[in-house]
C-alpha cells in the first residue's frame, strides 16, 4: 500500500516537471522569434511584427497558441513558420484590431477548419473519450494495481499459519487414527488389489 502511494507521488512529480518545462519553453520561444524592426510589406510571407501595440500582440499570442497549424498539425499557429500559419496570424491580428473578441476569432477559425483547429476541443459526445479517457485509464490501472497488491497481502498472511487450537488438534488426531473416510479408502484399495 505504502509502495503504491510512493509510486503515485513520484509519477505525479515527474508529470508536473514535464508540464512545467513545456510551459517555460512555450513562453520563451515567441519572445525570441519576434524580431523588433520595421514592418515588411504585406504578402511577403513574413509575419508583420507590431511593436506599436504590445497589448494587441499579447492577445494575438494568446489566441494563436490555442489554434493548431493545419499544415504541421502538431504546432500552434503562434509557433509555426508555415506560410498558412503566417497568413492566419496576420488575419487574426486584423480581426482583433477590428474589435473581434478572442472567442469570435476562434469561432471564425472553427467555422472554416473544424474543431480540429482547436488544441482544446469543446466537450461533447465525440470528444468525451479524449477528455476523460486518460483519467479513466489511470483509475483502472490503479484499481488493478491495488487489487493485485491486496491479493498478495492475503497470500502472505495465509502463509503465517496460526497455532492449532486443542479442538483442531484432537480432530486431526482422530483423522490420523484411521476413523476418517481416508482410511476407509485405503482399506478398499487393499481389498481391490487382491
Amino acid at each position, binding site marked *: 500500500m505504502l509502495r503504491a502511494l510512493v509510486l503515485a507521488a513520484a509519477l505525479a512529480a515527474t508529470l508536473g516537471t514535464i508540464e512545467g518545462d513545456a510551459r517555460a519553453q512555450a513562453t520563451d520561444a515567441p519572445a525570441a522569434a519576434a524580431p523588433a524592426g520595421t514592418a515588411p510589406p*504585406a*504578402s511577403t510571407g513574413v509575419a508583420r511584427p507590431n511593436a506599436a501595440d504590445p497589448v494587441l500582440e499579447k492577445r494575438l499570442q494568446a489566441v494563436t497558441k490555442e489554434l493548431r497549424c*493545419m*499544415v504541421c*498539425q502538431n504546432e500552434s499557429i503562434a509557433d509555426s513558420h508555415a*506560410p*498558412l500559419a503566417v*497568413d*492566419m496570424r496576420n*488575419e487574426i491580428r486584423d480581426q482583433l484590431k477590428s474589435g473581434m473578441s478572442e472567442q469570435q476569432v476562434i469561432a471564425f477559425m*472553427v*467555422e*472554416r*477548419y*473544424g*474543431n*480540429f483547429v482547436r488544441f482544446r476541443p469543446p466537450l461533447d459526445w465525440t470528444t468525451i473519450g479524449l477528455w476523460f479517457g486518460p483519467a479513466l485509464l489511470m483509475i483502472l490501472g490503479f484499481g488493478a494495481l491495488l487489487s493485485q497488491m491486496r491479493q498478495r497481502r492475503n497470500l502472505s498472511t495465509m502463509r503465517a499459519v496460526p497455532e492449532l487450537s486443542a479442538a483442531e488438534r484432537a480432530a486431526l488426531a482422530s483423522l490420523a487414527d484411521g476413523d476418517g473416510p481416508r482410511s476407509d479408502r485405503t482399506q478398499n484399495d487393499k481389498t481391490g488389489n487382491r
Partner: protein
Amino acid sequence: MSRAWLPLAIFLVLATFLGIGLTLNPREVPSPLIGKPAPAFTLPTLAEPQKQFSVEDAKGKVWLLNVWASWCTPCLEEHPLIEALSKKGIPIYGLNYKDKEAAATAWLKRHGDPYRLSVVDPTGRIGIDYGVYGTPETYVIDKQGVIRFKHVGPLNPQVVERTLLPLIAKLRAS
C-alpha cells in the same frame, strides 16, 4: 485460466485500434463546410484581371472548385485527372492560390488549361474562408451553391471513379 487470456485480449483490442489508425490519413480532416453554402467571393480572373467571377455566377450547375498553384508539385500530379474530368464536360473552376500571375499563366500554358476560368487569390484570404490547408484541394459544389464534398491533396483515380463521378451524377439528377 480465463485470467491468462486477459493480456492477449487487451493486446488484440489495442492492435485492432492501432491497426485501423495506421490506415487513416491524419491529413484528412473532415471539413465543417460540407453541407454549407460555398463561401462567397468575387475575384479577378487570371486570364483577364479586369473581369471578375463570383460563386453566384456558377449557380444552377454542379461544378468543381480546384485550388491550385504553379509552385504546388502535387497539383501537377493530379493535372491529367483534372483535364480528363474537364473533357467529360464537368465545369471546373480554378482558384489560383498564393501564386504570381506570370508563373500561373506560364504553368497553364505549359501543362494545359482544363479550367473554365481561374480566379486569383494572391494573399490566400479566400483560401482561409474555404479552410484550405493543403493544395491541391477540390470542392464539389451543387446547383444551389452548397459544398457537397471536399478532397484534400491530389485527386486519384479511385476518388474520381468511386466518389466524385457518382456524386456529380447524383447531384446533376436532383
